[in-house]
């Protein structure tokens, strides 16, 4: 955190001054470790084993915050008798389908709901990264469930959890992670001792956690611990993701993502959502509890904002205009399609995949095979110049005079040259005022896309093609100002907030959204940011003039709420758990919820409220159910649906690992997404042969002095000089083994690429003892590329493409490689070296290893007696050829 988010880290130092103990877990000793009280070196890719160890410690010693767990989580809920755990299936849960390497989730459901809830077959959900929909709400689940308040029933979630993690002992943590068991216990004790009624503990992770083939489950494990310890919805608690880009939260809320529409509404799927009603019902789950019950209003209002007068109740608000998904259309699938010549044009908007995405060579080869490429950036980045000075030009794979890609570089306006809002990592929107005009041809994206759209609409104004109707009917009138006709950002923010169509009055809350076409709302979760016609995100009341919650600085979604699910900061009766941790509580005199924050609960619903039989929507949420966006109002220790690779986190080895999974015969996540494309490969891992060809583990991350792919730091003099060269950090032990010298050169080889770097031999890296073996890890910054003031080979070139099944994010925090002294070869000799390694490792292009580990128990579908599933029957037959992207097993 000190490395990548130094200013956020001031609060950790503040806590430390007041006596807090800081634990830092990282494969290498960083600037955070330097000021932590305890540092735990860990083998990259084993976090679930570590966190699972903490879960086991809590459950074995009954250290959970029992009142909280009983009342607010699904610990007492009874699960179907058809459920079978990975402990019984040697790494597989019940319901595994080896044909698609995905799960049928019926057997994971709560008892009595095996057939009427859940997601069913998950292969299609994987392709559409359906897990991302749950960023603002839980998955579908039945509200009326059987519970055992004594937590003794063998199939209650608490007992299932206990059995699942029973083998995650301190000894196992040591064996899997390489963490000394005493040190592990120090962490487990500190965490549990500092949680409960009087104290809360915060779990902070940087989003490297997401970059694993089982990344979502990392975060799930953290959430399980925090729920068990009562650290969710309370001040000083929570699971805090430190995201790495100024408005990456905003670009997820108002998504430039293939599978989402604003406010986490799913992009329609051709087979599942042929009609507006089917689409809406798939979001709101008729009969389900919670606030998603009003999804029809959010959906209708979005389409009304998109298509204005043309969108009417009679034509389903132009629902037919929306493009439909048929499978995986994610960025990696796109790049492979580029290589195959299926994509004509590509826009890069402040993004540099030639350096920042996994498998840089695939990225660059894809871009070299387009008809046209538009790059909008502040600086001339690698993704704009790959055709003239990329690594593939040196190897002869890209010949400029044979590369047909037409490239437009359009200079972009910087953050001080335009106005608008960023949404930072805690969902807070902050408006930026404009300071100066952009130089020369530089323009904002707002300008570019507004005028591009205007021009497209002009050109198509007389088109008779049905495909052009969505463009012609688009509501695209925004007021402009200034010599360049810059659109007014506040007008766009007002549309995002939503307004009453008849009067133009901005909505104050999403509760005012209607499904009859009388309201237009661009992003329902942002409703209120323009309440009363005032730009609430522009509020800048000094922290000196308000309390510590600082509710009048910017605006947080939803409803300016700073801590989600804060009803959980009070006990079931609505009283603060403790005076010290008072945050939101029930005021019996006024008969309403009150506190420092906006209560995340219906303001006047008393703690004693119990829903009538069969109640749905918000009405179905009881007065002591804090998790109001969940279908059962509970925090989920166990996820009966929504997570595609298991209802509970399980330790799997990374896709590339030098180590055999010590816990299960199944080596890696069996549901991970692998592309069997000739450009892609996966280094062999045990029990496959030849894994010793790539004996070392490499991991990559950020330096304080640089930013992401370097486009905003290697180009900036006072930053570039602080970390002026690509380097690799190695332990003294590995340096001795390989023959590396301080400040000398090393090159690293994977099945995809070879890169070189200067050597820093440092005590900050350590070998680890894992399952009786010594494992060496090296660390690389991923900021370097071939453009800018300071240059170097790109670490991301080493990675192949393997994705998490829930969100289709690549595993780019760990891979295996060989490390050799000296500089790498250049020109065609470089390709020969990679080919030689591929040959020795038995890598066959386009044939990644099997998803199900040979020798692992043949998964059965016994838990799924019907053996069939309507979703699957519906979805597979009509898929558009992207099935070959699956595991080749």
């Amino acid at each position: 955190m000190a490395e990548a988010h130094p200013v956020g880290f001031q609060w950790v130092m503040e806590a430390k001054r007041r006596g807090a103990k800081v634990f830092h877990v990282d494969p290498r000793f960083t600037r955070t470790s330097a000021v932590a009280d305890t540092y735990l070196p860990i083998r990259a890719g084993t976090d679930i084993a570590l966190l699972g160890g903490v879960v086991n410690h809590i459950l074995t010693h009954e250290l959970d915050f029992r009142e909280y767990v009983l009342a607010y989580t699904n610990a007492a809920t009874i699960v179907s008798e058809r459920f079978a755990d990975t402990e019984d299936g040697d790494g597989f849960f019940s319901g595994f389908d080896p044909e698609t390497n995905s799960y049928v989730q019926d057997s994971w459901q709560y008892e009595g709901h095996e057939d009427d809830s859940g997601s069913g077959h998950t292969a299609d959900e994987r392709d559409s990264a359906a897990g991302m929909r749950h960023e603002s709400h839980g998955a579908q689940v039945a509200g009326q469930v059987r519970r055992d308040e004594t937590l003794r029933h063998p199939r209650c979630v608490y007992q299932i959890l206990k059995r699942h993690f029973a083998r995650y002992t301190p000894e196992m943590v040591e064996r899997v992670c390489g963490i000394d068991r005493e040190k592990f216990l120090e962490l487990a004790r500190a965490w549990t001792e500092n949680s409960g009624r009087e104290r809360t503990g915060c779990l902070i992770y940087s989003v490297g956690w997401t970059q694993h083939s089982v990344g979502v489950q990392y975060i799930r494990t953290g959430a399980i611990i925090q729920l068990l310890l009562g650290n969710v919805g309370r001040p000083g608690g929570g699971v805090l993701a430190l995201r790495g880009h100024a408005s990456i939260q905003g670009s997820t809320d108002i998504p430039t993502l293939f599978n989402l529409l604003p406010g986490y509404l799913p992009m329609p799927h051709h087979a599942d959502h042929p009609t507006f009603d089917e689409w809406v019902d798939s979001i709101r789950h008729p009969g389900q509890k919670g606030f998603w019950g009003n999804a029809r209003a959010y959906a209708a209002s979005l389409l009304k904002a998109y298509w204005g007068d043309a969108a009417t109740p009679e034509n389903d608000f132009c629902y037919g205009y929306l493009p439909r998904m048929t499978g995986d259309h994610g960025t990696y699938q796109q790049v492979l399609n580029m290589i195959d010549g299926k994509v004509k044009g590509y826009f890069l908007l402040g993004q540099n995949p030639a350096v920042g995405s996994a498998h840089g060579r695939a990225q660059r080869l894809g871009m070299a095979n387009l008809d046209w490429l538009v790059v909008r950036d502040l600086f001339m980045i690698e993704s704009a110049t790959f055709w003239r000075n990329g690594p593939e030009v040196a190897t002869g794979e890209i010949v400029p005079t044979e590369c047909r890609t037409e490239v437009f570089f359009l200079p972009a306006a910087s953050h001080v040259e335009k106005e608008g809002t960023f949404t930072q990592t805690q969902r807070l929107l902050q408006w930026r005022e404009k300071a100066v005009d952009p130089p020369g041809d530089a323009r904002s994206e707002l300008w570019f896309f507004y005028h591009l759209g205007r021009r497209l609409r002009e050109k198509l104004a007389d088109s008779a093609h049905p495909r052009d109707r969505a463009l012609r009917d688009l509501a695209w009138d925004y007021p402009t100002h200034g010599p360049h006709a810059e659109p007014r950002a506040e007008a766009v923010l007002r549309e995002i907030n939503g307004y009453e169509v008849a009067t133009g009055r901005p909505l104050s809350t999403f509760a005012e959204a209607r499904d009859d076409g009388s309201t237009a709302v661009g992003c329902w979760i942002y409703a209120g940011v323009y309440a009363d016609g005032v730009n609430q995100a522009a509020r800048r009341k000094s922290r000196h003039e308000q309390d510590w919650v600082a509710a009048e600085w910017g605006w947080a979604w939803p409803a300016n709420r700073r801590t989600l699910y804060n009803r959980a900061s009070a006990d079931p009766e609505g009283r603060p758990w403790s005076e010290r941790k008072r945050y939101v509580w029930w005021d019996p005199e006024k008969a309403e919820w009150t506190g420092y924050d906006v209560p995340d609960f219906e303001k006047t619903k008393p703690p004693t409220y119990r829903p009538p039989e069969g109640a749905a929507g918000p009405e179905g949420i009881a007065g002591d159910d804090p998790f109001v966006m969940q279908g059962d109002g509970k925090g989920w220790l166990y996820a009966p649906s929504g997570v595609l690779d298991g209802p509970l986190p399980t330790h799997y080895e990374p896709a590339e690992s030098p180590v055999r999974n010590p816990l299960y015969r199944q080596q890696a996540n069996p549901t991970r997404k692998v592309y069997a494309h000739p450009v892609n490969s996966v280094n062999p891992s045990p029990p496959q042969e030849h894994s010793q060809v790539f004996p070392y583990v490499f991991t990559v991350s950020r330096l304080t002095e640089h930013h992401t792919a370097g486009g905003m730091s290697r180009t900036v003099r006072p930053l570039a000089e602080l970390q002026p060269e690509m380097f690799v950090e190695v332990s003294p032990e590995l340096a001795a083994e390989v023959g590396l010298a301080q400040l000398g050169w090393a090159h690293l080889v994977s099945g995809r690429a070879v890169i070189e770097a200067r050597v820093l031999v440092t005590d900050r890296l350590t070998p680890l003892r894992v399952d009786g073996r010594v494992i060496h890890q090296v660390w690389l910054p991923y900021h370097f590329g071939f453009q800018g003031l300071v240059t170097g080979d790109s670490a991301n070139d080493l990675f192949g493409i393997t994705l998490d099944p829930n969100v289709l994010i690549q595993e780019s925090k760990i891979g295996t490689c060989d490390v050799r002294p000296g500089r790498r070869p250049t020109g065609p000799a470089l390709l020969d070296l990679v080919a030689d390694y591929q040959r020795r490792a038995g890598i066959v292009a386009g044939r990644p290893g099997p998803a199900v580990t040979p020798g692992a128990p043949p998964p059965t579908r016994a838990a799924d007696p019907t053996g069939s599933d309507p979703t699957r029957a519906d979805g597979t037959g009509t898929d558009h050829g992207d099935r070959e992207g699956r595991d080749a097993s």
Partner: protein
Amino acid sequence: MGLRTFIEGWPVYRQLTGSDPLGRGAAAQSARSAELTARTETADGVARSVCPYCAVGCGQRVFHADNTVTQIEGDPDSPISRGRLCPKGSASKSLVTSPLRQTTVRYRRPYATEWEDLDLDVAVDMIADRIIAARAQTWEDSDSEGRPLNRTLGISSLGGATLDNEENYLIKKLFTAMGALQIENQARI
């Protein structure tokens, strides 16, 4: 300046006649030093802004004069950052005023070995034409069972995590209306 004033302003004179006989302080202060003011004091204005690097959301004050950024520093009022900035945030002035910034459109023809110049208006027009052509070439009306698809898989986009919400909103709205589904950003990476 008269001679008398000139000599009175001269350090040695001040040293010999003033309270600073060693000439190390008040007497040695130069004309520039005496008139020195912080350039934040003389700025035309200050914009309340937010750091463009990571997602912590530190407040920035952007001072500017003559349409040029003269200083960017932390906003002490911010409850998030309390006026502090990391090295990247502190380098924001160098970022936005960098001489390495591209300020004109650059164009690379197919098979060309060099960049050439292109008018911005022409560039936007050419891009619009290419979008229309790509849609025409790759449009899919419906699947094999006649269900609507309304899309092109011939256009891709990546980016948006450092852009404004308003910008992302227009990007998603326009791409969706043109049937371009393959819109992605850093959140997937």
